[in-house]
């Protein structure tokens, strides 16, 4: 463990020692706990400032545009302009709204996202709470975000936001399952639910050992965060603007921050589960964590820039008819492989072969079924015939 790698921990230990001179043991723990809370808030909110800028720039560059470039050098401070403007805007509560719930819902949005950060290891030993059920906690808390959406839409008294809530819940329920299966595969191989243990088990990143689970997890978490191409609760052409339709000013800003914090959570969890977390050569662990997370975040924005929105039936079909059976099969095959060959290099290699083989088999099966099918829709979906 190099000096730079351990720097944050060294600083924390030094602080602990300093506090220990004047405070009792519980006081030290309290202050350190508070510092951790503040650090997590910073880690969750700081990316939001960067991401609002980054998303607009990535979208713009993908479309051969400049994106915001007049607010500061390269438009870097555009997030501050957004923040100041949105805070000084009028706050409207519609007459039909349930006032208490309407006010409470925006506060609820950010909480699950912030809570997930407590179990994400951001560097060697840099974790707020190393729970022994860490990843279970992350999955459970992550699905709580839908409660905020339900509260926001139901209290708005608006039929369009209500429709978007129905879509969001259907989406969450159907994508929770493949997500749980892919996480289960990881847990099976690493032999523990603790996130630190999962990271330490990844001598080879799990994305290379079981690509099916990795891609499934990534897509399912996109669906859970309501990101493109699964952002059909936002469907502008059908249901105006989604769950935050009636919110303006500061309350809308909370939804906005929640959305971008959630993107960062997708990146952080995918990094932890499949990309080897903070592990990497030369650079300190937290730098590797940041690099990998930002790479995943870029893929999220890249997909937003490219793919059109899915239809609700395509979305549900994709989950129930493809991802769930595929991951169930993957889970069983990977379990078999690691039981027979052990978790070493041989097991990893065999697992990769099995994964690719499964993908090829399913692909061939789908194509052969589609060739013999007379349904135009099936042929268009699978074979790409127009």
């Amino acid at each position, binding site marked *: 463990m190099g000096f730079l790698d351990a720097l944050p921990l060294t600083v924390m230990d030094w602080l602990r020692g300093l506090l220990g001179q004047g405070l009792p043991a519980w006081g030290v723990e309290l202050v350190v706990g508070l510092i951790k809370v503040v650090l997590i808030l910073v880690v969750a909110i700081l990316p939001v400032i960067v991401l609002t800028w980054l998303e*607009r720039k990535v*979208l*713009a560059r993908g*479309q*051969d*545009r*400049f*994106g*915001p*470039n*007049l*607010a500061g050098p390269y*438009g870097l401070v*555009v997030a*501050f*302009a*957004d*923040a*100041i*403007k*949105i805070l*000084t*805007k*009028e*706050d*409207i509560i519609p007459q039909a709204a349930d006032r208490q719930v309407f006010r409470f819902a925006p506060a609820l949005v950010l909480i699950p996202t912030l809570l997930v950060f407590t179990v994400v290891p951001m560097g060697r030993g840099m974790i707020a709470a190393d729970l022994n059920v860490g990843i279970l906690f992350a999955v459970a808390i992550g699905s709580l975000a839908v409660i905020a959406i339900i509260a926001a839409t139901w209290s708005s008294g608006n039929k369009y936001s209500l429709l978007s809530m129905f879509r969001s819940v259907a989406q969450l329920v159907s994508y929770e399952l493949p997500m749980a299966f892919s996480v289960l595969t990881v847990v099976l191989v690493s032999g523990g639910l603790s996130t630190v243990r999962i990271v330490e088990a990844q001598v080879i990143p799990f994305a290379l050992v079981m690509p099916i689970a990795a891609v499934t997890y990534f897509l399912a978490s996109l669906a859970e965060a309501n990101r493109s191409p699964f952002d059909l609760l936002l469907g*502008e052409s059908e249901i*105006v*603007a989604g769950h*935050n*339709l*009636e*919110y*303006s*000013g500061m309350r*809308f800003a909370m939804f906005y921050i929640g959305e971008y914090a959630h993107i960062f959570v997708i990146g952080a969890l995918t990094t932890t589960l499949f990309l080897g977390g903070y592990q990497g050569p030369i650079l300190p662990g937290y730098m590797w964590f940041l690099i990998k997370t930002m790479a995943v975040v870029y893929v999220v924005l890249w997909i937003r820039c490219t793919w059109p929105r899915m239809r609700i039936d395509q979305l549900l079909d994709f989950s129930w008819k493809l991802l769930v059976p595929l991951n169930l099969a993957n889970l069983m095959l990977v379990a078999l492989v690691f039981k027979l060959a052990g978790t070493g290099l041989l097991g990893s290699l065999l697992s990769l072969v099995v994964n690719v083989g499964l993908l090829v088999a399913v692909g061939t099966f789908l194509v052969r079924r589609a060739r013999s099918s007379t349904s135009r829709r099936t042929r268009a979906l699978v074979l790409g015939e127009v």
Partner: protein
Amino acid sequence: MSEREIHHTLTVPETLVPEDLQRNALLTSVDSVYNWARRRSMWPLTFGLACCALEMIAAGAARYDYGRLGMDIPFSSPRQSDLLIISGTITHKMAPQLIRLWNQMPEPKYSIAMGACTVSGGTFDSYAVVQGAAELIPVDIYLPGCPPRPEALIYAFTKLHEMVGQQSVKTVSWYRKEGEA
């Protein structure tokens, strides 16, 4: 870029801040930050009425890109947008919806009447068409043209930004109660 010799009739009401307050450093810096933020993050409402809407879309696309001004998130909910670009013929059938959208937008809000039809009814001097958006809602900037070029629309944005830049937190109407001066 050549200087424009003829500057056309953009008259912005002078600031109503008293003279002793104008030298107040805190107030002016608050004003400048406030106005800068509203200039650089003015989100338009996704709202197109007729053929001018195509020109508005072109202004947002890659060739002209009003996203450079920080406007690249066209929100589809009026609750979150700051700028209403009335782009195209307002028929009497569409007038209630336009007024409703305008009323749903939270202050501070601005509007641009884009094209001859919204400025004055234009070529449609008919029973079915509203003769100018000013009959329905307060308009900040009138932009003639049939339809105006995308550059002209961005010119209207820059003029709107100038107008926003001359406002002051002390005097704007939207932080006051009804009836206050």
